[in-house]
């Protein structure tokens, strides 16, 4: 169960807006976090607190394959990303680096709400409005990867994928 305060953005937030290409060529994760969402909302970096929840509309993370996008969000403190649905590469990347993501379809969550996410049930509860969203449960293999904190630890342990 993950609980946190929300920051809500709209549809089709692309990876250039999550982390511009010019900052991606680095292995220093704090540089990524420093520029997270900067072309979308320059105030996000100073507003976000450890454990906060990012909420978006349709097709979050479309565009490039850069894993720097979920890494930047995770390093900035985001605990889980909730969206109507995700672009597919972002979805895989997030799980692989151990950033939980959940798809819940249409929703009316607003910024500053208190939200509770249950990944194993695939549900999201907006504690502020009282609304409950029954989202998509992610496949077991992804739950297993998340449980290890990401693909690196998963493969270190299992040596191969297990469906």
């Amino acid at each position, binding site marked *: 169960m993950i609980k946190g305060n929300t920051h809500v953005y709209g549809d*089709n937030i*692309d990876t*250039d*807006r999550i982390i*511009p*290409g*010019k900052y*991606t*060529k*680095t*292995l220093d994760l704090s540089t990524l976090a420093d520029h997270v969402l900067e*072309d979308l909302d320059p105030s996000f970096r100073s507003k976000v607190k450890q454990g906060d929840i990012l909420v978006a509309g*349709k*097709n979050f993370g*479309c*565009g*490039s*394959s*850069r*894993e*720097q996008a979920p*890494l930047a969000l995770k390093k900035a403190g985001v605990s889980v990303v909730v969206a109507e*649905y995700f*672009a*597919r*590469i972002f979805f*895989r*990347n997030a799980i*692989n*680096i151990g950033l939980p993501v959940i798809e819940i379809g249409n929703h009316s969550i607003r910024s500053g709400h208190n939200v509770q996410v249950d990944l194993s049930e695939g549900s999201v509860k907006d504690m502020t409005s009282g609304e409950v969203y029954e989202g998509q449960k992610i*496949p077991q*293999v992804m739950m297993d990867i998340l449980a290890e904190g*990401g*693909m*690196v*630890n998963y*493969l*270190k342990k299992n*040596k*191969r*994928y297990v*469906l």
Partner: protein
Amino acid sequence: MGMTISEKIISQHIGRTVKAGELVITPVDGVMATDTTGPLALKAFEAMGGKNVFDPQKCALIIDHAAPAPNERIANLHTMMRTFAKAQQMRLFEIGEGICHQVMVENAYVKPGDIFMGADSHTPTYGALGAFACGVGSTDLAAVMMTGQIWLKVPETIKITCTGKLQKGVTAKDLILYLVGEITISGATYQSIEFHGEAFRGMTLASRMTIANMTAEMGAKAGIVHPDGLELPYDFTPVLPDDEAHYIKEFRFDVSDLEPQISIPESPDNVENISPYEGRPIDYAFIGTCCNGRLEDLRIAADILKGKKVAEGVRLVIAPASQSTLLDAITDGSIQALVEAGASLITSGCGPCVGTHQGVPGDNEVVISAANRNFRGRMGNPQSSIYLAAPATVAASALEGKICNPKKYMD
């Protein structure tokens, strides 16, 4: 029940019949990473206990996104890639050899019927060859380099049929821009696309690559052009869909009246006919990228610009998709015509496409580009705006200094 091309390719790889929706673990025929995704992938590879890549002949690293290195930080990431490639005895494509997707196809790292995983979102480009090719991130790529396998969901397929012939002056880029506008940026999320019909049958490999390339702008996992009419410099057995294949959606378009298309800032699917935008002044024109930096693209531009000059106050930047494209365009005179017209020729590679170096636009500048993405800040400056169009449109617009329909220059 029949199979789509994607279902068939995956079935052939795992040795049993699979259907859309199934989760499978499949062997992979090739992988690549670039200087954007490679360094993180190599770090992940080592962290997950990787010792040797699964097959050095099937793995490649490409230095194309920021090449030559614009600063010491990136130079050191390039060094890291070179060191890894040497230790693993795998091929590294150096600065200037070309854009990842172009060099993978030119060097036959990917072939019809293959399953290929590339750490770059435009990997579906290889659907031009009839391959099932998906973009993945760095950690997924590391896992494939280590295991030679990937887990994936067999995708549903959208069938797009285009009937009719494109008019003179209207190219594959106009067609795919039009289709991106129709399907939208998320219209094919998690799905595969198959392109059928007369409009694709006569297309060159280069044009097919332009088509498959922009399935990434529909959110597709893979985008495959029906291999009917495909010509390659080697023998191959195409993987064809069954007549009774099941498609999740089917679209039909008659494209015989299509006019040149343009994508308006700030999303590739914001596509319109060019006519209402004609006359809009531009500052900067760019031809290149994995979408439109190939020989036929440079040739069209050269034909339009030959013996003329780019409009005053406008700069034209050209980045050939690969070294071999560059050499061919030197041999056939295209490069001379372009440079004489005032074009600035830069290293074969991604160039200004991704805003890392080599041609960042200034504040309030308007760019017309033959690339595939125009998200805000894409070329490195969120205060500039990017229009996407075919190379012919970009060249003609550079000539006039304003957005224009290239038709009058193409007789």
